[in-house]
């Protein structure tokens, strides 16, 4: 049962981190697309938006992962 629990927790963590990255990238892309439509700078806004969004997603994943590390340390001690 404990092994199964570990797998399930791992899946949950993977899904959690996955959504963080996807959502941030999508928002960055949407903002870039919106800026393109407003200012007529297609396709540069979209390109910059995707890159910034990916950076933001990585940052969010990093923060979420650091939180998990702290929780695990608490459990061990």
């Amino acid at each position: 049962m404990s092994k199964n629990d570990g797998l399930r927790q791992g899946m949950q963590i993977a899904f959690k981190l996955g959504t963080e990255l996807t959502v941030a990238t999508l928002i960055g892309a949407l903002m870039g697309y919106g800026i393109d439509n407003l200012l007529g700078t297609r396709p540069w806004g979209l390109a910059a938006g995707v890159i910034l969004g990916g950076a933001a997603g990585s940052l969010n994943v990093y923060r979420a992962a650091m939180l998990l590390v702290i929780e695990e340390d608490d459990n061990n001690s």
Partner: protein
Amino acid sequence: MESPLHHFEVHTIIPIHIGGLDLSINNAIVAMWVGLAIVAGAFMLVVSRGVNPVPGKLQSVLEVALEFIRSMVYEFIGEEEGKKYVPFIATLFLFILACNLIGLVPGSYTITSQVAVTGAIAVGIFIMTLVIGFGKHGMHFFGILVPPGIPKIMIPLMIPIEIISMLARPISLAVRLFANMTAGHTVLAVLFGLAMTGPLWLGWLPFSFTIVINGLEIAIAFIQAYIFTTLTCVYIGDVIKLH
């Protein structure tokens, strides 16, 4: 053969139309009322009986739940600041948990499988964190957009990144809960469909899987409610501490 997504459909029960607004009572709203009634009813029952120093069965369950939530809030927000958020976080946790668990009763409706519901909760929390941040720090709140200890040359790059990562929070909060509940219930429905359409010598196999997955879904109902409230605490804690 019904579609596996059939049980996510919203059916109007009592149509109410006021000035072009559709305020009809549908099965989702009824399920939400049942969730509220269970949570509120359990606490009312304990309080109306009188809170005992030696807790009974229901009282000890609720006490354990509240103490768990309180320790979570204290951990992420801090003991002094966290006190006033305990009722809100506890309500959120118990409501989401009740909604998730009600969805597992056959024939009922999973409200948290509607992105409109989870989105409304998440956007409400997002606006709340902004209000708390501006109320506490005033214009210094914009400092949250600049992480501590970065070189000055990076600031123009970090501000858009931080804005995107702030905006991504409520959406990932909403999408995570919605996707988990929808996926789990769709799997259950598909397996039930297989069990009902297959011959008996084969149908027992998917049917026994549904029992296993049902157990998994109960665990997911708890885990998702926990994740949702933990992240809410983290977001509130972030705005209060400003790094």
